[in-house]
């Protein structure tokens, strides 16, 4: 009997029919993948299973019996643990408390047993191979660390059903492998696993069965072994695609960005590299290596202690994003929810936010110019949206990412910094984004790309700067770069000659 079953479920948000009549079962002891393009309705299904949304029609069944979750507490009580697409931590509480929230170990007096709680957290972290201090507050954790805490949280509840909505989007290969080891052992103990990812190699590595969705509708549920990746993509997108778009070769132009000896105490030290027009330079490294921090310092949103940033040979004022923007820089940050978008504002306002001053006439802004600017770029990026005046928070994760890209590409930058640009973006759009970056580079744009996805790095970069623990560990040309050489540099081993 199915542990959990989705039966003819529909859900719409206003005019958007996010999920329409989807059914599939989830068996104990199986890892089940859910795939689909951005906005296909995957997260909406997850949220219904988690009790966050109530299905408009249709039913959910646990062990064959109909259930009606009034809230997340009910789903939790039914043994369903969920890792949401966006981390949902309590920043002020310690990591251990975050993990234990709701089922903290108690002493005889029904007080919280802190020692035991911390020990539990350490145990989980050891299992996942994460070097995190359980007593530190969750505030200030990188996206990846947050994601890891989320994973630990879900694992701690010893759930009968584990649902993971893109848990690996922010992780690099090492963490993903450790996560999979843990998940497999859970599965072998009889838990039912639901796994969502846009990376097909992960799906084939972990899952036995896959359910494919398109535009809110169920397309197929099949054994993974019976399908090739191309089959999956075809059914998901409805046409053929090449998953990765290799970068065209461009004759590099003048030096656009020079970073010399950039240091910030406790975060990164003595970072130097340069980027030329037409070049894509990738910053690779393990999670927490400090890549995002470096680029944020370069763009001026973070301070730095010493060093120089030059654009077109001119020294940039530090700690002033506006100066960086004036010099033609744009930064697509890694955390779209906190750094990239203002969720409550409309799509058009978000897209035009960095350019409002340029769009203004006589210092005044008129709605039309904003709308036109937003329209052009969201269309170019094939963003799936209702109205431009909708709050950006109502979009699916991947479409939000496209809005962030649109927002910065619309500024017409000369130097584009993208931090995990395709995180949570589906294959179709990913190829689109890569093609776009490549053609922009061909037009003379200099690009710095921070990415945890090795295939992306290898496919797109002209040069790769590998960071390890806040220092430059290696600079590799396209010819030198292989999966092994990058990983060795990132992990601190000598490159095998």
């Amino acid at each position, binding site marked *: 009997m199915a542990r959990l079953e989705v039966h003819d479920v529909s859900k719409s948000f206003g005019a958007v029919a996010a999920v329409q009549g989807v059914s599939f079962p989830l068996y104990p002891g199986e890892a089940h993948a859910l795939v689909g393009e951005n906005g296909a309705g995957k997260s909406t299904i997850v949220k219904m299973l*988690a*009790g*966050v949304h109530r299905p408009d029609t249709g039913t959910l069944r646990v062990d064959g019996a109909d259930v009606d979750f009034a*809230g*997340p*507490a*009910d*789903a*939790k*009580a039914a043994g369903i643990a*969920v890792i*949401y697409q966006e981390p*949902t*931590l*309590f*920043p*002020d*509480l310690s990591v251990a*408390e975050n993990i234990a*929230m*709701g089922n*903290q170990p*108690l002493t005889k007096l*029904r*007080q*919280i047993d802190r020692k035991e709680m*911390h020990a539990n957290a*350490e145990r989980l*972290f050891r299992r996942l191979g994460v*070097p*995190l*201090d*359980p*007593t*530190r*507050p969750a505030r*200030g954790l990188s996206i990846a660390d947050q994601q890891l805490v989320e994973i630990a949280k879900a694992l701690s509840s010893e759930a009968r059903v584990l649902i993971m909505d893109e848990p690996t989007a922010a992780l690099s290969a090492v963490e993903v492998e450790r996560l999979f080891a843990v998940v497999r052992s859970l599965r072998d103990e009889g838990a039912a696993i639901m796994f969502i990812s846009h990376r097909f190699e992960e799906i084939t590595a972990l899952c036995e069965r896959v359910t494919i969705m398109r535009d809110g509708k169920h397309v197929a549920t099949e054994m993974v072994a019976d399908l090739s990746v191309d089959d999956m993509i075809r059914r998901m997108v409805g046409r053929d695609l090449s998953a990765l778009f290799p970068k065209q070769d461009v004759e590099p132009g003048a030096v656009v960005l020079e970073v010399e000896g950039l240091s910030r*105490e*406790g*975060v*990164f*030290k003595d970072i130097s590299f340069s980027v030329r027009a037409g070049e894509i330079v990738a910053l690779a490294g393990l999670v*927490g290596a*400090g890549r995002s921090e470096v680029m944020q310092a370069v763009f001026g949103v973070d301070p730095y202690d010493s060093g120089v940033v030059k654009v077109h040979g001119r020294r940039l004022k530090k700690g002033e994003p506006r100066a960086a923007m004036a010099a033609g820089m744009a930064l697509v940050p890694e955390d779209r929810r906190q750094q990239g978008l203002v969720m409550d504002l409309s799509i058009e306002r978000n897209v035009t936010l960095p350019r409002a001053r340029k769009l203004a006439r006589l210092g005044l802004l008129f709605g039309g110019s904003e709308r036109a600017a937003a329209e052009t770029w969201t269309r170019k990026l094939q963003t799936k949206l209702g109205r431009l005046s909708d709050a950006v928070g109502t979009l699916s994760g991947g479409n939000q990412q496209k809005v962030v890209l649109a927002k910065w590409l619309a500024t017409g930058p000369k130097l584009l910094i993208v931090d995990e640009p395709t995180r949570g973006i589906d294959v179709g759009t990913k190829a689109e984004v890569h093609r776009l970056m490549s053609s922009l580079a061909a037009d003379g744009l200099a690009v710095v790309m921070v990415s945890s996805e090795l295939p992306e790095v290898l496919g797109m970069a002209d040069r790769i700067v590998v960071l390890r*623990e*806040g*220092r430059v560990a290696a600079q590799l040309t396209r010819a030198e770069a292989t999966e092994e050489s990058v990983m060795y540099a990132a992990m601190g081993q000598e490159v095998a000659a």
Partner: protein
Amino acid sequence: MTTLSLHAPAKNLLKTRELGIVLALALLIAYTAIDNPRFLSGQSIRDNLLNTAILAVMATGQAVVVITRNIDLSVGSVLGISAFTVATMMSANPGLPMIVALLAGLAVGAVAGLVNGVLVRFGKVPALVVTLGTLYIYRGITYSWAGGSQVNADELPRHFLTFANDNLLGIPWLVLIALIVVGTGSLMMRNYRVGRELYAMGSSPAAAELAGIKVARNLLGAFVLSGALAGLAGVLYAARFGTVDAAAGNGMELNVVAAVVVGGVAVFGGSGSVWGAALGALLLTVIGSALAVLDINQFWQQAIVGALIILAICADRLVAVRIARSLRKRDAHV
């Protein structure tokens, strides 16, 4: 990156958020006592503690509400309505024992708090709006009911009035009640699940819903607690001051919020502690009486209170920054 945390108590003490305010308090007391040693006399200490008691009781409830990322501005008005209800009740039935008065005050306050909580949670109205509204409403009700009438000390039963000054083992009842309230509140917030859930709700309301925390129950609980404690404070107020009219506790909400904020409770919820808030109440009271003792020009007093509040917040901030820095050092890889 170290995985092990250091549990040395001395180190923890240096890192508590409340350190700044303890220092500020110590400095103030030392300075005043040097100027006028009578500031440390038994009567003076007793007076200060008695004056703090009422504010500390209210600050406890307020701290709990603020920790959940809400606010309760209606506490001054709740104190008023409770004080007047209880005083009227006691003057009409002088035979009633003190415990009935205390329970009545708690009950009146709890009902007022429940109304706040229901409006915030089920009406989805921000707490600041709700309680600013009920601040006016509860006060208006008290005024309409009391009019210009006043309950005077001579109408109140003796045992009710002496309650404020009676001791148990040398500790005045009022102070004892405040200690119990603050102590229980601190313990609940620190060591019990419900307390941690309240912190979680304030730290991230959306995540709290997703974590399956019984948000509605906890939120109502927090508001009922704040209301009930303001109600209790009303009884203590009536017993201590003897004269109660419709204006009792007018404007008190700002003092209470100031105490909580000065005590290091973050206005955006999720951090701070009940005992910090109580310390804040103590600091504000001591500032008030120290200025009177230091014989500072009346006209300067309020300005100095303001300056000291700001200093206390700065001190708190300094400690917070130090903690954050030590945290970063611990995580540093370079």
